[in-house]
């Protein structure tokens, strides 16, 4: 008999029925009576000061209801990150809603609300802005030079932060080394490319209370930031959770301009205001930070690390926003704690430039670190003539070790070795040739990379929200409603959280429905980010369902004249343990609890008692108990065309330890999508800008190339090594982010295996391959 009735099964996604027939639940579909449409005017200059703005012609255009310029909005500095408290000391607050100081091409300078989108758009042309253009700087290393244009008035040499981490004695570690390897690894700016644009509708009532609908990954974060920026009480802002949103991948973890501007326009006009990004606006709103990572690594001949040093330069763009935070996550999880090494040091530099803002993107600093570390390991193995699997196993953490960074935890479930071994078996690693081989113009190679350490939440990280909460309410027909603030952006938690509730309640997965939530009605929750929902929200849902089940059994105990402790519930039936004939359906019990003095039953009326009364409900609000690490190894086979430099990914085997798998199909979907984003990162995606003006030149999907169905390999195999995480809901850990951190270095390593060309800066274009082959 299976251990679980619901967990571990690929139950159908309940929201899929709606999504295949029209997808009504997306925020992009929200409309309200009398709704106005707003648009933003954006600066054509990357660095400028506004001398004056004249919006009077725009205001006079028929249909225009309100115009906002910098003088009309609060000049309060803020940080837009949802997942940290606005008042956190760690955050650099340097963004204002509309400013006269322009720091990047496309920075909003004014907003218009009008009766139609076309009128709003036309009004933008009537706003007269007098700019004083200033010299811009786009390269972070130039921006750090003395004499470079000053971007932030408070940051000397445009440096926002210079964190360091250190352990042991680095110099001693390098002295112990038999060999030292050095290299610099660069990554480019890429966009998450969520398919549903950023959109919001904000309504206001006569007392100034706001109701907000938006495509975001965190309803409480949106409420908190809006309240802060607008200096309004949080209790006067209700953010409504959408049933689902059209992707996010990290990009929807910030307040962007639209929500506060729409709020101000709504307050000004007393009408609902809708604001939606164009795809160009989406592209220039936030993107993964480009990083340059220098690594110096000392190893023994047997492959043991003796010393590791890294220096990372992060281009944070025009405002600090995520830069000072992403660099820490990058350093801790993708470099400092990834492998065992006694002597380590890392230096970071976060630099302002006149580029667009950096943002969160699945992996949050890890893909950049993984790219450097896992590429260099391949180089080290080549230098030492050592098997890359053996090398990693030698330096990896082990199950039961203390958590390498969060000292209060242990790696209670950690099966990296199994990931490596099982993945190797599936890809046929032992038949791989170690050096470039084969003839002809199409060369094949196999590469590997790992993601040794990541998070399933945020516990232990000082300033990041970690709570989750849930309400589970049983219905008289034996079903349950689950309400949580957690947003499903495609990752499937509308299904997996229902499965967790169903398992705990002892009812079928289809009997639990994800129901309505807004910031007024459900407990506080951290965002859908940091691979945390299955683990953190899963624990909260399990706790709430457990409470509801306890009450269910109490009422059933009254009805059966049995002790609640002697009862169990499974498959919708409450029964006496060991005497399954003495039973009731969940529906009968819940109906009794909500009945008047007399309950009508098939067997006739039954008198109820006071003790049985009251809805059967469970509520939780809690921090999860730990921060267990998922880990993974990925193997890829590529084909490199030595004539054209084109790289084709033929096959991917991805082996993960994510604890217990709640829904295998959903987990596979995460892997497959992560592989796609990783292949894009590795081979083609690149947000590019005009070097003179700083304007984005890849602002639509014709210029920004991401993998289509034709570029994706037909063979993507997910292997889940099922460990049992003791702190996880039914043993589960997080998944999402590790799926896309590994493909880039695994592909680079496979290319090296195929043709002996080492590319250290992403994306790996055909030109770089041909240059490496000496053909350019």
């Amino acid at each position, binding site marked *: 008999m299976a251990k679980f009735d619901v967990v571990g099964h690929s139950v159908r996604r309940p929201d899929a029925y709606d999504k295949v027939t029209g997808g009504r639940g997306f925020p992009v579909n929200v409309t309200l009576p009398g709704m106005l449409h707003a648009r933003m005017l954006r600066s054509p200059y990357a660095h400028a000061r506004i001398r004056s703005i004249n919006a009077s012609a725009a205001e006079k255009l028929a249909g225009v209801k309100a115009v906002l310029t910098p003088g009309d909005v609060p000049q309060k500095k803020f940080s837009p990150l949802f997942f940290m408290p606005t008042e956190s000391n760690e955050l650099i607050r340097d963004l204002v809603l509309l400013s006269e100081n322009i720091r990047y091409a496309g920075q909003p300078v004014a907003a218009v609300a009008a009766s139609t989108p076309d009128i709003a758009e036309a009004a933008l042309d009537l706003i007269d802005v007098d700019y004083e253009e200033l010299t811009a700087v786009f390269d972070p290393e130039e921006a750090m030079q003395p004499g470079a244009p000053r971007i932030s008035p408070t940051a000397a040499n445009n440096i926002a932060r210079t964190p360091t981490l250190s352990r042991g004695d680095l110099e001693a570690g390098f002295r112990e080394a038999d060999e030292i390897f050095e290299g610099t690894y660069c990554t480019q700016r890429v966009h998450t490319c969520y398919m549903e644009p950023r959109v919001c509708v904000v309504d206001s009532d006569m007392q100034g209370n706001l109701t907000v609908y938006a495509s975001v990954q965190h309803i409480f974060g949106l409420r908190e930031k809006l309240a802060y920026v607008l200096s309004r009480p949080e209790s006067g802002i209700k953010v409504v959770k959408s049933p689902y949103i059209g992707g996010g991948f990290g990009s929807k973890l910030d307040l962007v301009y639209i929500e506060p501007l729409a709020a101000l326009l709504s307050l000004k006009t007393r009408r609902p205001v809708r604001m939606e990004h164009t795809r160009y606006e989406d592209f220039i709103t936030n993107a993964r930070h480009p990083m340059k990572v220098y690594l110096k690594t000392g190893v023994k001949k047997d492959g043991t690390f003796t010393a590791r040093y890294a220096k990372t330069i992060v281009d944070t763009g025009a405002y600090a926003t995520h830069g000072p935070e992403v660099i820490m996550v990058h350093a801790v999880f993708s470099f400092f704690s990834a492998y065992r090494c006694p002597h380590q040091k890392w230096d970071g530099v976060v630099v302002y430039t006149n580029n667009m803002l950096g943002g969160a993107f699945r992996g949050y600093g890890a893909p950049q670190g993984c790219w450097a570390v896992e590429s260099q390991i391949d180089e080290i193995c080549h230098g030492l003539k050592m098997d890359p699997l053996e090398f990693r196993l030698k330096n990896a953490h082990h199950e039961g070790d203390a958590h390498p960074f969060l000292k209060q935890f242990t790696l209670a479930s950690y099966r990296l070795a199994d990931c490596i071994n099982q993945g190797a078996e599936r890809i046929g690693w032992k038949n791989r040739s170690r050096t470039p081989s084969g003839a002809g113009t199409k060369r094949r190679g196999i590469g590997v990379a790992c993601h040794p350490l990541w998070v399933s939440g945020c516990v232990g990280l000082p300033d990041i929200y970690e709570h989750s909460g849930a309400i589970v309410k049983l219905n008289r027909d034996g079903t349950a409603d689950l309400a949580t603030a957690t947003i499903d952006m*495609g990752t499937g938690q509308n299904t997996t959280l229902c499965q967790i509730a169903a398992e705990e309640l002892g009812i079928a997965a289809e009997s639990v429905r994800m129901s309505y939530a807004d910031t007024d009605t459900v407990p506080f929750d951290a965002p859908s980010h940091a691979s945390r929902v299955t683990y953190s929200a899963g624990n909260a849902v399990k706790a709430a369902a457990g409470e509801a089940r306890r009450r269910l059994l109490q009422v059933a105990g009254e009805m059966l004249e049995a002790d609640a402790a002697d009862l169990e519930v499974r498959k919708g039936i409450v029964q006496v343990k060991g005497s399954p004939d003495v039973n009731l359906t969940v529906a009968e019990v819940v109906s009794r609890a909500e009945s008047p003095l007399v309950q009508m039953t098939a067997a006739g009326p039954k008198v109820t008692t006071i003790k049985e009364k009251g809805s059967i409900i469970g509520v939780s609000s809690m921090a999860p108990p730990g921060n267990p690490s998922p880990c993974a190894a990925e193997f890829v086979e590529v084909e490199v065309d030595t004539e054209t430099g084109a790289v084709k990914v033929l096959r991917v085997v991805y082996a993960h330890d994510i604890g217990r798998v709640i829904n295998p199909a959903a987990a596979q979907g995460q892997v*497959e999508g992560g592989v796609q984003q990783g292949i894009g990162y590795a081979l083609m995606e690149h947000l590019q800008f005009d070097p003179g003006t700083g304007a984005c030149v890849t602002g639509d999907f014709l210029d920004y190339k991401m993998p289509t169905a034709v570029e994706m390999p037909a063979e*993507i195999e997910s292997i889940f090594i099922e460990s049992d995480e003791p702190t996880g809901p039914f043993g589960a850990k997080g998944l999402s982010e590790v799926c896309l951190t590994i493909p880039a270095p695994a592909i680079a390593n496979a290319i090296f295996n195929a043709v002996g060309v080492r590319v250290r800066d992403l994306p790996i274009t055909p030109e770089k391959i041909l240059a490496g082959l000496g053909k350019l």
Partner: protein
Amino acid sequence: MKQIVPLHINGDIHEVAIEPGATLLRVLREHLGLIGTKRGCDSGGCGCCTVHLDGKAVYSCMTFALQVAGRKITTIEGLSPDGRLNRLQDAFVEAGAVQCGYCTCGMIMAAQQLLDVTQTPTEEEIRRAIAGNLCRCTGYHKIVAAIKLASAP
């Protein structure tokens, strides 16, 4: 100047007052409430807005509504007129091909056209048929599987 034109959509005739520059996408979503058709880019790059025009998959964001007056238009809402999923929609649910779902309606419209003309397409034909439809969540893996499932004899 707006013009009143008849649009033949999913078997109904709608008389709509249309600005000459209005795209079919905009008219579907903003005039007719046919919100299953999605805007992902408005510039012919993503395929979220795919509908059938005389049985051929087209981007409705790149089609002027005026040009299609009187022609047969099918949107995602037209695939399940009796409220039941058609075979392809059911296969998408069954195969786990739906994640965030924002691409899904366009993807199904593109795939449906393939199935309308090719009974058992090859993997390559399937991938080509949806190459104009971007999905950022699934890696297309289960989408391809769903289309195969729907075309299985």
